[in-house]
């Protein structure tokens, strides 16, 4: 992220930022709720240079959301440059051929809009929301930073310091920050997903201005970008502006490098005990390797995630937090990415409890999902929760644009923003049980016990 508010970063705030948006994307419900989801009537076109444009005209507020999705993410960090894609994202707010440092802020914030960006495992997304009369200005600006970057040593060093502070703020200062890095590092052995997107101080220090230029030339090109525009505009006018400012950017002839490494199937449980400073209560993370985002199993995995961990009626909250009082936090996250999915469970223990005991209680809830189908009421509840979240996302132009971007870039078809609803609705209790049985096996499991380093006794800092 370019900017986050100073908020508590608890467990679950992983670097796979897009998952936070993507999580609620699959959808369905009882007919009553499904009927209320308005179809997103989008238009797509592709310029001769390969830039894809998806737009939705909506005049309900005098604003417009503009997003540019680049199909490059943290998994594309160069060797020895962990954290680079994200550091690069920060540099995209510095000078270009036609813009001075931070001019994007002048064109957005200064006129009542805002901008931000995030780097996920598979994509980097830049977005702004502005009063709709500024649409042409922002299209010009986005095209300008796609066409050229003009960074210098001074602003590179200063921005790298900002990223180091971001690392400290999100991963060093808060309890459990380091656990989020370990989840990535221990869950993957071969795929670059093993390198946390925030990087580390040494590899950030190793990055050079030349790396920035090379990365821009390699990945920031029209045939690797999708422009999404949602809001108050005239379609014809939009097309003309897009042609004028983006159409003149040449399409490089060099091939686009792609990550081809794949994570081998896990062949046996792996266990780790990790010690860290500043661990008020011990924690447990358990991960399973699951299919990628485009898999047909994604829908059932989303439903399983919701039944397991969304809300106080979810199975994990009910069993581990409410009844057994063994955990003070119990989360599950189906972090489905482009190349592989990672299903992550995180527990922060209640005080006085012990990691082995908590792990056992978690595994027994997972077993219960495998042993018997979920009830019809649980299934319907999960679908209602997912669909209501989807409605919340569609309250704003920026939310709609994020949904479209995910469908177009990560799922490969913008139409999925509309059709996934029916797919999710079709998920049965048997589907959920099948994916649980298939993927949540002993040999597909990684377990991390996360305890205070000051003592061998895991309860050392847990007692009151």
């Amino acid at each position, binding site marked *: 992220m370019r900017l986050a508010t100073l908020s508590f970063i608890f467990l679950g705030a992983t670097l796979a930022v897009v998952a936070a948006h993507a999580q609620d994307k699959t959808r369905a419900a009882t007919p009553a709720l499904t009927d209320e989801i308005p179809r997103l009537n989008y238009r797509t076109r592709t310029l001769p240079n390969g830039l894809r444009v998806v737009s939705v005209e909506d005049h309900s507020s005098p604003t417009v959301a503009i997003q540019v999705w680049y199909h490059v993410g943290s998994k594309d960090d160069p060797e020895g440059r962990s954290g680079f894609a994200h550091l690069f994202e920060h540099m995209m707010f510095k000078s270009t051929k036609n813009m001075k440092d931070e001019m994007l802020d002048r064109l957005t914030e200064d006129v*009542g809009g805002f901008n931000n960006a995030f780097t996920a495992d598979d994509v980097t997304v830049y977005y702004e929301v502005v009063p709709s009369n500024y649409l042409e200005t922002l299209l010009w600006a986005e095209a300008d930073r796609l066409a050229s970057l003009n960074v210098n040593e001074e602003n590179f060093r200063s921005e*790298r310091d*900002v990223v180091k502070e971001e690392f400290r703020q999100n991963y060093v200062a808060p309890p459990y920050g380091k656990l989020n890095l370990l989840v990535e590092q221990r869950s993957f052995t071969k795929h670059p997903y093993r390198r946390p997107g925030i990087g580390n101080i040494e590899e950030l220090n190793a990055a050079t201005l030349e790396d920035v230029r090379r990365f821009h030339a390699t990945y920031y090109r029209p045939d690797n970008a999708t422009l999404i525009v949602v809001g108050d505009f005239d379609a014809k006018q939009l097309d003309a502006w897009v042609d004028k400012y983006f159409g003149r950017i040449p399409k490089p002839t060099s091939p686009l490098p792609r990550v081809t490494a794949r994570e081998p199937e896990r062949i046996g449980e792996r266990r780790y005990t990790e010690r860290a400073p500043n661990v*008020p209560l011990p924690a447990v993370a358990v991960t399973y390797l699951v299919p990628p985002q485009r898999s047909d199993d994604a829908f059932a995995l989303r439903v399983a995630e919701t039944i397991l961990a969304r809300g106080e*009626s979810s199975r994990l909250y009910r069993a581990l937090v409410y009844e057994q009082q063994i955990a003070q936090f119990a989360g599950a996250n189906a972090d489905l990415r482009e190349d592989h999915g990672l299903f992550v469970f995180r527990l922060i223990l209640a005080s006085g409890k012990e990691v082995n005991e908590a792990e056992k209680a978690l595994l027994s809830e997972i077993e219960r999902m495998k042993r018997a189908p979920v009830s019809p009421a649980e299934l319907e509840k999960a679908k*209602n929760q997912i669909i209501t979240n989807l409605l919340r996302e569609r309250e704003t132009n920026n939310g709609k644009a994020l949904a479209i971007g995910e469908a177009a870039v990560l799922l490969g078809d913008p139409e999925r923003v509309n059709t996934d609803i029916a797919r999710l609705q079709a998920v049965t209790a048997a589907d959920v049980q099948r994916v649980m049985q298939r993927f949540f096996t002993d040999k597909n499991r990684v377990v991390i016990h996360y305890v205070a380093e000051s003592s061998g006794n895991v309860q050392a800092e847990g007692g009151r």
Partner: protein
Amino acid sequence: MNKMWRASLMILAVALVCPGARGQQEMPPSPGPPRSVRFPTPVEKSLSNGLRVIVAPRPQGVPLVTALLLIKTGAEADPPTLGGLADMTANLLTKGTKRRTAPEIAEAIEALGGSLDASARWDASTVSVNVAAARLPQALEILSDVARNPIFKEEELERQRRQTLDNLQVALRQPGALARFVAARVLFGDAPYAHPVSGTPETVQRLRRDDVVRFHQTHYRPDNAVLVIGGRIAPDAAFALAERLFGDWKRPATPLPSPAKSERSQSNRKPRVVVIDKPDAGQAAVVLVRPGIKRTDADYFRAMVANSVFGGGYSSRLNQEIRIRRGLSYGASSALDVRRDVGPFIAATQTKNETADEVAELMLKELDRLANDDLPDTELTPRKAALIGNFARNMETTDGLVTQVASLALYGLRLDEINDYIRNVQAIGAGDVQRFARERLAAKDARIVIVGDGRAFLDDLRKKFPDLEVIKEKELDLNSGALRRARALKETGP
């Protein structure tokens, strides 16, 4: 967002007028004519039991509705030894009623796709739900049940107590959260607004069921409440629903207790510089705090614009100096936390331990500069636009709309102020901001709190603030304005 275009044109001109040394530079295209924006107009009605019902309809919006029941009493009413009482009371509402157990409440609301949140804050306790419009009747029935009929089972109190203590244990280990807790004590001493809303480990231990029952009986009554419903619903339908679910809520014969006053005690009038020495801190949290204003202050809009210039938003001065210019932080910002009584003005950031003193000094310097240096229109105009844009974006969601309307209702302000917001901000000039900064935000009244590894910055900090107080993390006592635990009283817990 009308009226902004002229201003922004000016900014563009300034930004681009310097001829590019790089030659063939292109100018960004100018904006087209602006379109105006209008927010929903809230309508209201009072039920015969005194409950004020407000509806903010958005007929064309996404089919979602937020309902929020606001009790006009919050953590400021906690007795000094029972910090956390208001929050505990609110949290326990959803943990069992005459008709439903805690799991049944969670099950019922989540089956509708909604979630029910109950908590206390300063000046108010709230219960709210956000659901698909079609499910509002069922959801509002559950909301009414938990607000009116909670039974406060001992077993649930114990469970909630353990959860609160565990949450506090985690929060107290975050430099940023801890610095804010300490800042409230430094500013308010032993007066209301001084303790953490959720209480401290010691006060949470003391809460008894009788306290909770009494708090609920005293404050949760229709003539001390406001129900706000916003989103895609017709006012008539919302009023009818409110009448059906809250109409028979009895108003007690006893008079309403008057709200607590936050009289700042003598001991905390003197600005202090307090360092909480936390040797394992991965980063230092630096907070500047001083008295701000009441929500109903006549200077409210001057204050909001002043804050926008100083530390509200990415391009504010604080973030410019600390992050953009020097790379000292991931972000620095400030806020005026306006309340019924005078709330805090807080600037906060996190930086590596070595630069904590430098950042504290920058904050003070910027506050001085706000009062004394010129504020050109080329800076003021964009900061006003940023403020207006933020407001307008918050109003886009049903949650944001309802929160805004509820806040006006809580402080007895005109509900249609939302449609005057843009005009009110535009009317503020540079002189207003400077006068406000000089008279109401002077740096000489600022307190500084740093939570971090003292070894890295204490020597330098002492040169600037010879009177600074250093308190070891283990000796910190959040229960009093003195902040230091008396050795003999050192608590070991249950």
